[in-house]
């Protein structure tokens, strides 16, 4: 890395030094608890749509915790946060719009 990059890397490392270890253990604990809830719900034989809604909800919370704390995005500058998250969410929304109506259409027409 050149001098500029080294200076920026040192600045980023300095930000990391201020984060307490306990926070990471809390996040890890929360992720484990949410996983345990997911498995518990599996054994309750809920309706598939209700089950899917809850599981996806918990998955998005877990993803947000991993991205925010473990991947450190919470502490990045706003420009970085918005650009990364908006671009990927926009692409996934486009996939949803294109794929899912078609999947239901096949079901409606019947599988030959």
């Amino acid at each position, binding site marked *: 890395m050149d001098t500029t990059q080294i200076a920026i890397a040192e600045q980023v*490392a300095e930000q990391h030094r201020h*984060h307490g270890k306990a926070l990471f253990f809390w996040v*890890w604990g929360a992720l484990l608890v949410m996983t345990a809830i997911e498995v518990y719900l599996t054994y309750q034989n809920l309706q*598939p749509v209700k089950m899917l809604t809850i599981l996806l909800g918990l998955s998005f919370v877990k*993803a947000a915790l*991993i991205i925010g*704390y473990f991947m450190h995005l919470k502490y990045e500058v706003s420009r970085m946060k918005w650009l990364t998250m908006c671009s990927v969410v926009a692409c996934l929304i486009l*996939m949803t719009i294109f794929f899912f109506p078609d999947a239901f259409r096949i079901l409606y027409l019947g599988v030959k």
Partner: protein
Amino acid sequence: MADSALHDIPSVYEPSLFGTYSKKIGMWLFLLSDSLTFGALLYAYSYGRISTEGWPTPFHSESIINATIMTAFLLTSSLTMVLAVRASVHGDAKGQRLWLVATMLCGTGFIVLHGREWSNLIAEGLTLPMFPKVPGHGAASEFVNVSKTVPQFGATFFGLTGMHMLHVTLGVIYLGVVALRRKFIPILLVLWLVAWLGTPVYSPFHYGAHVLLIAAIVCTIILWLKPKLYDSSDVEVAGLYWHFVDLVWMFIFPLVYLMSAKIL
């Protein structure tokens, strides 16, 4: 001239547009593109599930427990990874190496359990046409008809989880190079031989093990061309990749395993 003048003054530098160094921005861009790969695979699986009648639910209680332990391994590996990053920014080289090796062990545990899960499913008849035939494979095996009547399940399941397993394997190798540098190459070669010779010829892992040999060759070339001591920025960038494979599993586990569980 202007550049050299700037570099002579360490405290003066051009501010980064994203407030961080280029390597990290590069990794974020790679992860964004990779998230679309996994997004497409997850959508393909979900599309198949919605549009196919008689979608199988092959995951018994034993599979769910196995997948839950795999999830715990990955979550714990993410914790050890942040502790490695933390040790590296504090200049604790020993702690950094220790936590990186702990992360690799958790990742290896995940791969071994996942391999066992795949082997059990294949032995029960859930397979792909490209997989070698299992000798003595009975027609009465539980899922022998699933591969014929709903081939979409095997294709999307093995495609999605196989791609994730490959990412975890490459992640373990990446961390091994960052933690141990050249010392990791002989370890990787031993792992390749164990995986290759230790699996039966009809197992997909018998041929899949050659990924480790290819990785060993690539790592040797990289370490030979650019030998260096990996600093805290390298550890942080490796950590981003590792957390990403954990993140992807947070969607695969509920969508593939929990939504296709067969709890009696």
